[in-house]
């Protein structure tokens, strides 16, 4: 049951991720990406990490993708305004991407399954356990990460403020 669910979610997420690339309309691409995030949230759910799944939906599907959608809707991209890519660029992209795929396949086909470093607690994804671990064992990285976020936020505000008033 769980395994078939895993395969279903994996195939849909890969399919949707491909559709993000292949969709002609940029808005459709973004919508496929949102659906991809939902399938990834489903993966978190079958890993018993409900908190992570919901935070993933709130942050990625709910906030970041809305901003993506904003920008793309306002740009109003369509087939006529899209700059034409030269044939050479397409070939270069295909070859580069193909090389990357070749390397990845080569690496992962030779890789052995790594044994778990220590016994994994299957209940770790529940909010209570996750919170306890984050605020005891991992308090230092957690706080450093939040300070990093704060710095990034202030940086964004400063960058936005530097625009002269004439821009509006």
């Amino acid at each position, binding site marked *: 049951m769980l395994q078939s669910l895993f395969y279903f979610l994996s195939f849909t997420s890969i399919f949707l991720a491909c559709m993000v690339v292949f969709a002609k309309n940029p*808005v459709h691409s973004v*919508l496929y990406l*949102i659906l991809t995030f939902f399938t990834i949230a489903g993966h978190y759910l079958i890993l018993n990490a*409900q*908190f992570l799944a*919901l*935070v993933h*939906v*709130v942050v990625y*599907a*709910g*906030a970041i993708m*809305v*901003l993506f*959608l*904003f920008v793309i*809707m*306002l740009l109003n991209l369509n087939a006529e305004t899209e700059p034409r890519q030269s044939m050479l660029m397409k070939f270069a992209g295909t070859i580069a991407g193909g090389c990357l795929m070749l390397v990845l396949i080569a690496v992962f086909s030779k890789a052995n399954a790594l044994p778990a470093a220590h016994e994994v607690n299957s209940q770790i994804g*529940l*909010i*209570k356990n996750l919170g306890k671990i984050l605020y005891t064992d991992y308090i230092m990285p957690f706080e450093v990460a939040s300070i990093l976020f704060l710095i990034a936020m202030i940086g964004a505000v400063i960058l936005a403020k530097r625009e002269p008033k004439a821009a509006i």
Partner: protein
Amino acid sequence: MDLLLNFLPAIIIIVVMFGITMIAALYSTYGERKVAAYLQDRHGPNRAGPGGLLQPLADGVKMFLKEEIIPVASNKFLFILGPSIAMTCALMTGVVLPWGDKFTLFGRTFNLQATDLNIGVLYVFAVVSVSVYGIMIGGWASNNKWSLMGAIRASSQIISYELSMGLSIIALLMVTGTLSFREIVLQQHGGILHWNFIAQPLGFLIFLICAFAECNRAPFDLAECETELVGGYHTEYSSMKLGFFLFAEYINMFISSAVMSALFFGGFNFPGMDFLAEKGLDANWITLIGTAGYFLKIIFFIFFFMWVRWTIPRFRYDQLMNLGWKSLIPIALLNLAITAAVMVIRHSNNFGF
């Protein structure tokens, strides 16, 4: 069979709640018109049925029978998807809300709640943040500048106010220490003084203001500001697809009233609960009174939503953004800091008091 019996109460509650939510939304439209009428010294709808009580049904039938127009230049699939997402997300939130305490029937005890997620509050947030897409997709797919502007206004407003709403909830969660709606409500047992709005008055105020903005209700209904944007994101919509958008707004109002009553006003707790239990009243009756009390609170908040709508004029868009980002978020952060400080002082004896 046993599996079915375990799921049966949840299924019944879901179906009943679906019905009640729909009826509540249907009669909110009636209530809105009546409240507006009384505030403006008119009679309001009074032709269909006694006191106009059948007016919502007439409106519903009208919505279904109107001609359905899909603009030629629109994106058909997304045009239909928009209102569907809005409606689905609006109906999804009710699952985690605690409608009542324990109820015993045929020797089985169950909670009047479809499911008690241990992260229920977060679930509501996730659904709310996804429901933005209904408006955005609908507005964009209409291929109309007014619709697009309305959609962008609505969604930027919703994501801006989600922040301060989240911050006010975090302060509340510090006090309660749980994300489960049921536990939050049960902690507020024992009289009005135990209700969370006593402990978190500022948090409640922020939550209330944000709830208005999240529901796109006046004074924050910039998304459908007629004088500037024709009809906002639903300019191109007609028939039941328009109905879905409007209906979703009323359902959201019902749900946010329910969330507010559960988080800050004790949910199904009511004053004199223990007194009735001491008098030997059956627990089932107390549960039912509690549920009725919960609905009374919800109806009060819905009335409050309407009261404000017909009293306060609409904000300007820059005022709305300034209020959200420059006032509410700092106040919410302050509330968070104060709550944290009080919690530290109360829970540690290191300070000597």
